[in-house]
């Protein structure tokens, strides 16, 4: 165990964890002190918690090869090995509970993310959905072209449940028949605009990069939580874009309310479902509040936070 934390992998696991903790602390501090409310800005800051710990140790070690030596550790601001080898009880030191946290987080990632994907690929769906193109609404077509300038198709799923999602590979939006029946034209526009916003934004390289980094740092609970937070901000960003395109925040709030009421009536089985329901409620409240507070000089603040994280983490080994 002692030698594990001296290896390259052991050092990376420890430093990525500690560096993400420091990034999390400074990002949350910046958001709180400067009252940063805009989802786009908050998301950019959350990305720091995912991107910086992934790159920090390799870059620091490249710039200062002596960073892994005892001389450097002795002068460091925080030397993790000093803590990891504190004996709790005879024969067991703090490195064991630390390793348990990483293993538990990895297990969570495996069961929540990887196994469902494998299950979806390996087992045939319980029921086949019948899908047909939706062409009867010319105003939606105009909205799609105005907002995306791309050929996005809408399909109807023959299903009574409330379902709406988009497919980034073949730009298309899927809406269930049950949902379509209960939406007014304005509400349909609002929900389609929200999905279009996802289609446009999901193609951005930074989102793909953050997702890849998050998967590589699967063992890191801080990264796991902040990725979830970034996803929540993504929903709010798409809400804002939908409101910008359709001109009505209330209509989108009413549409989301339909989902929220359905979710609330359902017996909640998993934390994920509870979290989704809570997020919808949060989004509805935000759309209705529509505060116009704007963060002044975001980029200097962003650079200050990123620079501080980079500086402090250099001295955490």
């Amino acid at each position, binding site marked *: 165990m002692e030698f594990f934390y001296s290896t390259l992998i052991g050092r990376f696991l420890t430093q990525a964890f500690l560096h993400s903790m*420091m990034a999390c602390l400074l990002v949350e501090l910046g958001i709180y002190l400067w009252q940063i409310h805009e989802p786009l800005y908050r998301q950019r800051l959350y990305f720091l918690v995912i991107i910086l710990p992934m790159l920090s140790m390799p870059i620091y070690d490249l710039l200062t090869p002596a960073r892994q030596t*005892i001389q450097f550790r002795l002068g460091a601001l*925080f*030397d993790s090995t000093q*803590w990891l*080898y504190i004996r709790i009880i005879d024969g067991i030191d703090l490195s064991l509970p630390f390793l348990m946290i990483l293993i538990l987080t990895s297990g969570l990632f495996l069961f929540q993310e990887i196994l469902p994907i494998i299950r979806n690929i390996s087992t045939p769906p319980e029921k086949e959905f019948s899908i047909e193109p939706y062409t009867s609404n010319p105003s939606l077509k105009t909205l799609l072209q105005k907002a995306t300038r791309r050929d996005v198709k809408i399909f109807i799923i023959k299903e009574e449940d409330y379902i709406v999602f988009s497919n980034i590979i073949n730009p298309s939006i899927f809406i269930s028949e049950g949902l379509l029946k209960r939406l007014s034209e304005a509400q349909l526009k609002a929900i389609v605009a929200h999905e279009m916003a996802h289609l446009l934004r999901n193609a951005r390289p930074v989102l793909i990069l953050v997702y890849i980094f998050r998967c590589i740092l699967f063992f890191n609970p801080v990264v796991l939580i902040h990725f979830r937070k970034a996803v929540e901000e993504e929903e709010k960003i798409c809400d804002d874009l939908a409101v910008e395109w359709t001109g009505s925040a209330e209509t989108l709030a009413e549409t989301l309310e339909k989902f929220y009421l359905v979710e609330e009536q359902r017996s909640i089985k998993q934390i994920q479902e509870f979290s989704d329901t809570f997020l919808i409620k949060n989004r509805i409240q935000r759309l209705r509040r529509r505060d116009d507070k704007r963060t002044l000089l975001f980029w200097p603040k962003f650079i200050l936070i990123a620079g501080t994280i980079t500086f402090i983490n250099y001295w955490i080994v």
Partner: protein
Amino acid sequence: MREILRTIAFVLAVLVIIMVLYLLNRIPGTFHGEGLRQYSSLEDVRESLRIRPFIPRYFPENLSWPPERILAQKVPYEMLLVVFKTKSGIFPYMAIRESRSVKDLNDNITTIEKVTEEVELPINGKRGILQVGTCDGIPCSRIFWQEEGYHIEVFIKDHPSELLKVVRSMSKD
């Protein structure tokens, strides 16, 4: 004005975080005295960590005694680094390191800038590797080998013959 105050609050909070980190880093020393730290003498290392250092009986004439720097740890693995300066104050002049891990063998104290020659050499019946080269334009050399489960390394900013005299006189204290 409010923005300036908030920025000052952020800077102050960062300073507090740095101080807390600094203090946190000192806490483990109170739990166990076996982590990496600097020692004032080899006696101190022997008493605190129960490490028996490999000590040479021969020292070059221009070496200054006692050692200028002694770093040692028992955890995560046993390691002792003793660094000497010359009587005229050149530092580092000679360094002796014994470690249970090979990881520490490459660092800035004992690094030869430009290796001009590398040869295998028997040291007390073990296979050693001698490197000769220059450090800051001065001739320097180092030798490393394994003995009793330790990775041992001796570095000197001097002619290799001095290094070999030191190494051949070394034994466990």
